[in-house]
């Protein structure tokens, strides 16, 4: 595209790319209000301005009457149309249509007039184009606005800065034959880009909104949704190859002392190699958040949960209750084995009431109902019958349940090894694990414990959760994904449910977990600080928040003011020009302070001589003139020392010293002067 220097004629034309957003908004208006042919007419007039340089004179006899005629026609047509309108069309719609059409014609008028203010008309036209687009955003047709808005804003964002940086480019003269098609292609490309942008928004609307929601919730894209937490809502016994959990932080426990086993979900039915809750046939009492609140006194442990990929609350078996904090709600999830789940903004915080150890207040340690007990004793048919024989050999000769539990644990410890790599084989993996004394992970050990104890008539269930072992300070325990663990719980009459962990010591998370790196720890510390600030801010009331913001702004203002005053008083005027002579520097600081104290502040860009000279010229009173003359004399003497007296710097330092003493005396004399009278500022503001 040829770039020519703009002539004075062309400068009176509105830059041609302004047509693009105007046409765009008018298209939106037409699609919204297809009853109105005026929009097409206005758009055509706008497009024609690209083809020729001919224009109407800017103001006066033609443009103003033209405006009046157009407005009259639009209103008349609107009235005629209103008489035919349907019941569904409201007055607001009609008004918006009219406003849009009037703006469209106003755009056309401005494009077609030649005026010295043509360049500022570009901004006005863009504004009116925006108004037209807004008028198109009627309730009846929001899709049009959605489709056109990105293109519109894109055009404005491209055109306006380009125009400001390269006015020659934009002011290229219209009318040349090969230029018009190029301009149309440019507009078409811009429209295409805009439609493409809109399409992207529409296609990925859900993903974009989810991303935004995650960011607002604090999880953002940095939170690891794909982190392996190790907790499965449907644990199965299968092939595993060195599956380790992540080091991502799952929980932080403060002031927790007790069993490291933090239970999350329990399962009582083994079928098809998996532990299933199978809730459909059960009659589970609904337990709401209120009934999970702490019911007993006793020590409390505060828990912070950082991820919500499973939404499960973890607690020790002997906990007395849970106490959700802030906006967290805790419920028992009836749909999936009854785990206790939470619902609240991350990180979730809740307290665990550790209770006093009495069974009566162990909310979660309730005796199984008859159906539950039946399930907790059930050995499914898929278990190899030889497992029952093994169980019988292990513990049948022991009478008490504790003895049987110990026997089973010892047996597994002796005959099976811990390993993260397991090949279950084709048969039932649990049976194979027991019969073939295989090596496997904690899920196998827990499952085997459950089945063997059931064979010995001890009601037992399978539990998954976390093993809390990592101490971070004297009263804090950090639980990570790699601390996921599985174990069994057995019911002992008069004792209640007890934790039975048959996983060998070297297979428990305290032995297998790898310590997090320093970078992970630092990241977690930073996250904690940010979370604390966020929580603190969210707990502030509106008035408190307003006070805080106001206080911060006041502090900033005071700081800036003090800094500027301090800098003004202490620096040897302008860091750009350092006064090497310390005596002279002090005198300059004193004089600046003197000027300020007498309401004669001198701006940085003004010399004292000019400043005082103006003040002197503006005063008529003899006393004021004497006052200012003294100041001027000081300035003149100061200038000699500051900018002159070159020779005295070296050879005749005595003369310089004498001059300095004299200058100091003058300064003392000035400082002894009484305060400056009013009227100085007014005098200084009078034009010189």
């Amino acid at each position: 595209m040829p770039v020519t220097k703009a002539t004075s004629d062309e400068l009176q034309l509105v830059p041609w790319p302004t047509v693009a957003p105007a046409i765009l908004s008018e298209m939106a208006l037409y699609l919204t209000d297809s009853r109105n042919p005026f929009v097409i007419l206005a758009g055509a007039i706008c497009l024609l301005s690209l083809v020729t340089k001919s224009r109407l004179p800017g103001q006066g006899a033609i443009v103003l009457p033209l405006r009046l005629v157009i407005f009259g026609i639009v209103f008349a047509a609107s009235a005629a149309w209103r008489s035919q309108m349907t019941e569904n069309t409201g007055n607001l719609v009609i008004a918006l249509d009219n406003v849009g059409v009037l703006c469209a014609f106003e755009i056309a008028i401005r494009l077609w007039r030649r005026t010295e203010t043509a360049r500022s008309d570009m901004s006005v036209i863009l504004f009116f184009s925006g108004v037209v687009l807004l008028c198109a955003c009627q309730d009846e047709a929001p899709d049009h606005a959605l489709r056109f808005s990105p293109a519109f804003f894109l055009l404005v964002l491209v055109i306006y800065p380009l125009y400001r940086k390269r006015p020659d480019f934009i002011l290229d003269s219209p009318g040349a034959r090969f230029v018009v098609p190029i301009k149309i292609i440019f507009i078409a490309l811009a429209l295409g880009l805009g439609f493409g942008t809109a399409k992207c928004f529409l296609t990925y609307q859900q993903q974009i909104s989810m991303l935004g929601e995650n960011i607002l919730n604090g999880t953002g894209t940095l939170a690891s949704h794909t982190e392996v937490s190790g907790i499965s809502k449907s644990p199965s016994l299968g092939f595993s190859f060195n599956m380790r959990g992540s080091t991502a932080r799952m929980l932080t426990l403060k002031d927790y002392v007790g069993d490291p086993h933090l239970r999350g979900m329990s399962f009582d039915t083994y079928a098809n190699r998996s532990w299933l809750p199978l809730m459909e046939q059960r009659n589970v009492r609904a337990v709401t958040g209120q009934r999970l609140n702490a019911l007993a006194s006793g020590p409390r442990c505060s828990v912070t949960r950082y991820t919500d990929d499973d939404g499960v609350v973890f607690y020790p078996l002997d906990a007395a209750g849970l106490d959700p904090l802030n906006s967290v709600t805790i419920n028992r999830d009836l749909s999936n084995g009854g785990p206790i789940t939470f619902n609240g903004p991350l990180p979730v915080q809740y307290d665990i009431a550790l209770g006093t150890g009495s069974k009566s207040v162990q909310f979660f340690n309730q005796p199984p109902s008859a159906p539950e007990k039946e399930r907790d004793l059930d050995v499914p048919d898929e278990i190899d019958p030889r497992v029952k024989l093994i169980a019988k050999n292990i513990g049948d000769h022991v009478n008490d349940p504790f003895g049987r539990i110990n026997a089973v644990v010892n047996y597994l410890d002796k005959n099976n090894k811990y390993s993260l790599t397991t090949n279950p084989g084709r048969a039932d993996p649990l049976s194979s694990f027991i019969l073939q004394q295989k090596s496997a992970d904690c899920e196998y050990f827990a499952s085997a414990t459950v089945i063997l104890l059931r064979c010995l008539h001890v009601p037992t269930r399978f539990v998954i959760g976390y093993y809390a072992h990592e101490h971070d300070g004297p009263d804090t325990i950090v639980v990570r994904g790699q601390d996921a663990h599985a174990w069994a719980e057995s019911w002992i009459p008069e004792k209640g449910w007890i934790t039975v962990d048959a996983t060998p010591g070297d297979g428990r998370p305290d032995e297998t977990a790898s310590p997090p790196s320093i970078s992970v720890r630092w990241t977690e510390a930073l996250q904690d600080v940010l979370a604390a600030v966020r929580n603190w801010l969210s707990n502030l009331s509106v008035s408190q928040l307003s006070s805080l913001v106001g206080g911060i702004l006041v502090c900033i203002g005071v700081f800036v003011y003090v800094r500027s005053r301090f800098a003004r008083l202490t620096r040897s005027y302008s860091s750009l020009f350092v006064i090497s002579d310390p005596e002279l520097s002090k005198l300059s600081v004193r004089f600046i302070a003197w000027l300020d104290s007498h309401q004669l502040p001198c701006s940085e860009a003004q010399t004292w001589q000019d400043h005082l000279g103006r003040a002197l010229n503006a005063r008529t009173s003899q006393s004021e003139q004497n006052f200012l003359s003294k100041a001027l004399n000081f300035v003149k003497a100061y200038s000699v020392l500051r900018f002159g007296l070159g020779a005295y710097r070296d050879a005749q330092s005595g003369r310089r010293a004498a001059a300095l003493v004299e200058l100091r005396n003058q300064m003392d004399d000035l400082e002894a002067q009484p305060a400056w009278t009013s009227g100085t500022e007014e005098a200084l503001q009078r034009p010189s």
Partner: protein
Amino acid sequence: MNDTLTERALELEKNLNSVIRGKAESIRLVMIAFLAGGHVLLEDVPGTGKTTLAKSLARSLDGTFRRVQFTPDLLPADITGSNYYRPQEGIFEFRPGPIFTNILLADEINRTSPRTQSALLEAMSERQVTIDGNRRDLPDPFFVIATQNSSDFQGTYPLPEAQLDRFAARVSLGYPDIETEIDILYSQNEGHPFDVLKPVLSAADVIEMQADIRTVRFERTVAEYMMRLIGFTRSDSRVRLGISPRGSLMMYRTMQSRARLEGRDFVLPEDARALAVPVLAHRIMLDPKARYGGVQTSQVIEEAMEGVPVPR
């Protein structure tokens, strides 16, 4: 410069003020440029005393004065002179042009062709002319007052910025105020003030003054301030061509000249502020957008002065 010379410089200025009434500031600028060894561009409407000023200056110096009215058909040789062939002797004789003078008034310099303009401007900067391979020095002192009419552009060849840069200052006399003009009318009742002018300085005095001015102390801080002013204009987005080192050198000299005329042997920041617009404004070329937007070069200079802190 010793006090005697300073007094005589002021006497010269007084001479000029007696002829050109009510324009003390403009005359001071002309004096500053003259003593700094520069030349002056007078932008004015006709009849404001440009020729009278130049003639008065020449009379006061007891020097030679020439006036050239620039027209579109003027040739460079009409300015510099040329060699004439004398057939009787068979030799070429050089006839110097009007440029060989102490004070030259180049009237309406923008009416002649760029070629002729260049011939003059080259001579102004180099103080010599080369004709047919022979170099000929111009008299010393050599001072050019060029004029152009700021309101008439028809049929003109505006001086390009590179050429404007050769002028130390751009000055405007302008119309006198009413009271002054009445004084002018009455003062010429019995003769023109120019007729009674007496020389107050010799060419040698001027040369001595110009050399002495270079001894005026220029504190580095003031030089930094001056360069920051100039640098501000160079980095301004509205400026396409900033002030050249020639401009900063001329600013340096004129500041020294002003300090001397005010009786100082050292330069102050006030000198920079007083001379910034007349010495620097005509050296700036604005961006077309700024130019068409109504920005003036003097505005750029003034904004620079508002933006750069002054050393104290």
